[in-house]
């Protein structure tokens, strides 16, 4: 009983950590530019796939990961340069542009890599660790550990560094930020780059467990969007809590109720939350000013 519970808990936390990273990526870009980036999941795919192919080309794993992050960040910066200057574009138009980007990234991966499933070796062996009767993969601990480190690093960046504070200021009021001398273009590039890097890292972390191919970004992107919305758009804490919740709902739903309906349960609960809290768990409660 307990072993089962712990097993589901770790499965949920692992998936949840990945969703949280994708959700944080959504939030970073949304805060800086008010664009919802439906290509966010493709960053995860690009991170995983590029690492696989760079490693296959003979690079050591660490170097392959570095190349993958660079490639993905370049993809993120390219998106910023293309999408953000589209002024006067409605929310829906921006959504379509990022969906176009996600189709392009997917198409590029399909054309330049391939359509097969690939995996990476775990960072530190495949032997499960016994914990309260549950078998925990070492890679799980890597996923959780690195996610925690990233969250701490982001926290420090936003609250202890001048550049991080500049990003926050821009997200609150772009015009005011520009007036006090913040380079808004730099902040935008930084947010897109950082967001892409988070996605790439998530892709590298999860590939040894779930494997990857050119299409994995779709579902991961949607789950990350769920995490960001469930937590409340633009809230960092919200994205992490939202991501973990989505992961846990899936894992426990699949384990105790029905594995076919695990995704449906996640979406169902998000709908319920939105019905009662229309701006998510940690979203700003705004009263319409008229």
């Amino acid at each position: 009983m307990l072993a089962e519970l712990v097993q589901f808990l770790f499965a949920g936390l692992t998936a949840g950590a990945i969703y949280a990273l994708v959700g944080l990526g959504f939030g970073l870009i949304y805060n800086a530019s008010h664009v919802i980036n439906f290509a966010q999941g493709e960053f995860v795919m690009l991170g995983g796939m590029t690492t696989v192919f760079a490693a296959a080309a003979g690079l050591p794993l660490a170097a392959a990961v570095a190349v993958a992050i660079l490639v993905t960040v370049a993809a993120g910066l390219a998106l910023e340069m293309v999408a953000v200057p589209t002024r006067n574009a409605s929310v829906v138009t921006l959504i379509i542009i990022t969906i176009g980007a996600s189709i392009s990234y997917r198409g590029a991966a399909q054309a330049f890599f391939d359509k097969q499933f690939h995996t990476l070796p775990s960072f530190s062996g495949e032997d499960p660790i016994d914990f309260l009767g549950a078998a925990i993969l070492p890679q799980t601990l890597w996923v959780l550990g690195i996610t925690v480190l990233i969250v701490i690093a982001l926290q420090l960046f936003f609250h202890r560094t001048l550049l991080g504070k500049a990003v926050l200021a821009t997200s609150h009021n772009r015009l005011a930020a520009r007036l006090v001398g913040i380079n808004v273009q730099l902040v935008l590039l930084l947010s897109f780059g950082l967001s892409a890097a988070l996605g790439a890292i998530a892709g590298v972390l999860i590939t040894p467990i779930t494997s990857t191919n050119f299409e994995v970004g779709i579902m991961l992107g949607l789950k990350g969007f769920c995490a960001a919305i469930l937590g409340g758009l633009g809230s960092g804490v919200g994205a992490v809590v939202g991501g973990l919740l989505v992961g846990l709902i899936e894992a426990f739903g699949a384990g105790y109720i029905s594995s076919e309906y695990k995704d449906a349960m996640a979406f169902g609960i998000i709908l319920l939350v939105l019905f009662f809290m229309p701006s998510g768990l940690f979203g700003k409660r705004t009263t319409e000013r008229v």
Partner: protein
Amino acid sequence: MLKVLASPRGGGLLVLIVLIALLPLGFQNNFHYDVAIRVGFNAIVVVGLNLLIGYAGQISLGHAGFLALGAYASAILTGSHDWPPVLAMLTGAVGVGLLAFVVARPVLRLKGHYLAMATLGMGMIIAIVLNTESQLTGGPDGMSVWVSFGVAGLEANTPRQWYWLVGALLVVWVWLALNLIDSPFGRALKAVHGSEVAAEVVGVDTTSVKVTVFVVSAVVASLVGSLSAHYISFISPQEASFFHSIELVIMAVLGGMASIYGSLVGAAILTVLPQVLTAFEDFEHLVFGLVMMAVMIFMPKGIVPSLGLWLAGRARRPGGEAAP
């Protein structure tokens, strides 16, 4: 011709009728008919969706779910229960209408990205149910639809018959939609987009307007789902997939938000383009994505409204042709 298409009522409907009547002259084989019929199906759904997204400003990323429910209702009721196709289609539409009515109220209280998430989730849940309840739906493998569509002894079997059926339905629906947006209800629809609170304080029940247009667009999708199930003779849960929902929204946005004729252009381009792009083989999807981005970046309002503005600007400029 573009100017007529860009003007709201104009002679657009006449142009559409002539176009539908003359197109078959250029068709060389059944494949051409097939593409045209698919354009027609998509156009009907997208006109409905544009009332919701373009005119009322309420995004939905889940309408493929309604379309698929209509398709499955027809497949199951005509296949396993021997219902007449029209009755099955209408039953499906009523069911979908009720479902849309029930979810509309809580869903449409949400705004912007939260509304996008809720409709996306709703569509995903429908897709998952269709995938999972394999005893009823055949699961991921889908199911065949053997019964031909027909009313009172008249059956649509050949591509030619389907072409005229879909063409006629499209013309009627476009006419109705043009009427609607030019009526007080249509003004209320646009006002919901422009300023909900302004509409409310002059007596518009904005909730009821939003719910109505949501239900109507869902019912239209369901009807087309039923028809296309009979036409293609096969359905699968892919009909309800997130990508299908997105495809419908892209058609509406690419062609032009708040433009009925834009919906037709968007549906035509997005149905034909993938056929053309197969020439790029491995790079098909990459090129498709890039084309989509380019259109939206250079024409953020969509093709038909942007061309309309461009033509109007040219007409006003000295030296350009005078506006009529």
